């Protein structure tokens, strides 16, 4: 049983430059996608909420970039970047927000609830914490089938750690010694609620020992540190060392949703290290470590924006679902459909 909560300060030197570039480009793509979502929201072109992960791209990318085909990723609200790194597309992102019938949710569910579970990309429900045992269950089934070396990653916020579902899920994963990595993005607030009204432990990482699982800590505004930490955590899980908890500190640089101006965020936090923009930090890191030049980054940024425009153009031309063609069935076994549907007669 691994009980020691390890803390690791990371240098970038373990990471392949190609990976660093790939990760950074995902971050750029996520940012460009979200910037576009924000404008669409402001233009009234998205019905319902828009929930962005600005400032969390580094951690989110790191969460899934070490996963392979056959692994499981259960992203949460702020994981636009991690989704893209795991194989989600900008097109499917827009399709889901715009309700395209061609999107993975076919207009039935929207925004951050998208996924392609058959491909290991699970689709969250809104209830925070609820995804933790589901990802654990996916891993459990894989092991039962004899598959080894599979890893599952899921993420949660500081607020989500207060849910019973989080607790039960992490504890169950620990008992079953499942290869689950739980990434806690401690962005200081749950909607408007500061950490002081959310938990009383000195450090969220103190929770790891309480579950008897390994713990890692990193600066979530630092892409290199996030990558190296997640690489270690994913590797440990893959090697059979049971669940791993990663606690990253950072700040969300937008509102909870685009309707929210985040006026409650402490100005001092915005100025502090925790309030850094990981894209800026990453750019400096890449340049200083000679992995890329400022020009490279400018080009990638343009390319990301172009990709976003292209995807949006496609998604905007796609139709939404036709209510008349829906089967309006919530179960798959047709013969067991309950016959009583008043609205159908209309």
């Amino acid at each position, binding site marked *: 049983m691994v009980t020691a909560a390890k803390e690791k300060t990371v240098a970038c030197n373990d990471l392949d430059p190609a990976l660093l570039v790939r990760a950074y480009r995902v971050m750029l793509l996520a940012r460009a996608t979200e910037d576009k979502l924000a404008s669409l929201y402001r233009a009234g072109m998205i019905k319902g909420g828009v929930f962005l992960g600005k400032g969390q791209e580094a951690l989110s990318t790191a969460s899934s970039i070490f996963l392979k085909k056959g692994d499981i990723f259960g992203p949460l609200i702020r994981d636009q970047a991690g989704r893209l790194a795991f194989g989600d597309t900008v097109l499917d992102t827009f399709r889901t927000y715009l309700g395209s019938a061609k999107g993975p949710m076919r207009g*039935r569910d929207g925004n951050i609830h998208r996924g392609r579970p058959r491909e290991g990309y699970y689709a969250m429900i809104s209830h925070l914490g609820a995804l933790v045992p589901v990802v654990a269950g996916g891993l459990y089934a894989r092991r039962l089938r004899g598959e080894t070396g599979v890893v599952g990653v899921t993420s949660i916020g500081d607020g989500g750690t207060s849910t019973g579902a989080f607790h039960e899920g992490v504890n169950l994963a620990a008992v079953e010694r499942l290869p689950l990595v739980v990434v806690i993005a401690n962005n200081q607030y749950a909607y408007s609620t500061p950490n002081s009204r959310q938990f009383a432990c000195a450090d969220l990482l103190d929770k790891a020992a309480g579950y008897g699982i390994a713990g890692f800590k990193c600066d979530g505004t630092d892409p290199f540190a996030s990558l190296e930490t997640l690489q270690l955590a994913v590797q440990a899980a893959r090697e059979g060392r049971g669940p791993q908890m990663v606690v990253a500190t950072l700040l969300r640089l937008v509102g909870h949703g685009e309707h929210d101006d985040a006026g409650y965020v402490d100005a001092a936090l915005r100025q502090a290290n925790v309030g850094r923009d990981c894209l800026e930090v990453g750019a400096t890191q890449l340049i200083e470590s000679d992995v890329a030049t400022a020009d490279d980054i400018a080009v990638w940024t343009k390319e990301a924006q172009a990709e976003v425009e292209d995807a949006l153009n496609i998604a905007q031309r796609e139709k939404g679902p036709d209510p008349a063609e829906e089967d309006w069935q919530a179960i798959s076994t047709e013969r067991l459909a309950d016959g009583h549907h008043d609205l159908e007669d209309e």
Partner: protein
Amino acid sequence: MSVTYLEAIRAAQEKALADDPRVFIYGQDVGSFGGAFKATKNLAAEFPGRVMDAPLSEDAIVGLAVGAAIEGARPIVEMQFADFSTVGFNQIVNQAATLYYRTDIPCPIVVRLPSGGTLGAGPFHSQSMEAVYAHYPGLVVMTPATVEDAYSMMLEAVSIDDPVIFCEHKLLYYHLKADKLPDTAQPVGKARIARAGRDATVVTYSAMLHESLQAAEDLVEEGWQIEVIDLRTVKPLDTDTILASVARTGRLLVVGEAWPWGGVNAEVISRVATEGFGLLDAAPMRLNARDTPVPYHPDLWAAHRPTASVIAARLRQLLTQ
């Protein structure tokens, strides 16, 4: 001046806090932020220490309210969305709802559930859970449909000694307006004839009241006078008012936004069929949402729940059968 449905809920909470030192509010983001929908705006500043942000723990939030109620407090807890009350479900249906029956100690808590569908809200921010709670003994379930009721029923919810599930409809929050807050109110537990008529009775509640009133209006030029009853509370259910109306009209349509299996509509029809069978001149009818999760896309959503035109169409069937 005009006041919205949401402002009425806020004003009622403000008055409850001002009038009764035993009242406090507990819920996610209800403090200085004023709540996800601003139903507690400024209340934390006005009543220091009595309007508190809770951790993201619905089970514990309701549990805390029950414990506080045992000690004589009168907590109001806000669920950020009705849909999230599923994770506080056990404390509501097994802890709060059974306390009085088991121990003879009343449990005066109010659980506010921002309920019902809105544009683009999707499967987990749109649910109508009134029927689930009404099934359990020990709970009072309120479903105000007007600004006046939002205000007066919230006040009464706080003042009665039993756990109240307060289903406030999000679609009404900002758009539904009244000239002013009411001074008097119909007693809770009594349904209201929202529109008098003689040809058929529509029984409904919450946001569907407005769709139903619109449908009734649309049928006027076809010569029909539709009576529309607003249930106001779904538990207790005011069977007498319903039966009296059906006795006059002989025809019944029940309209609700919740899912079709069971629920308020089934209970209303069942009561009329068992207790007022002889009053019916034709088979009663009901309109619910469809039996799927509430869809995200506006077009799907519009086809998922009853709307005025669907209600009107169904009424035409009812009137001519």
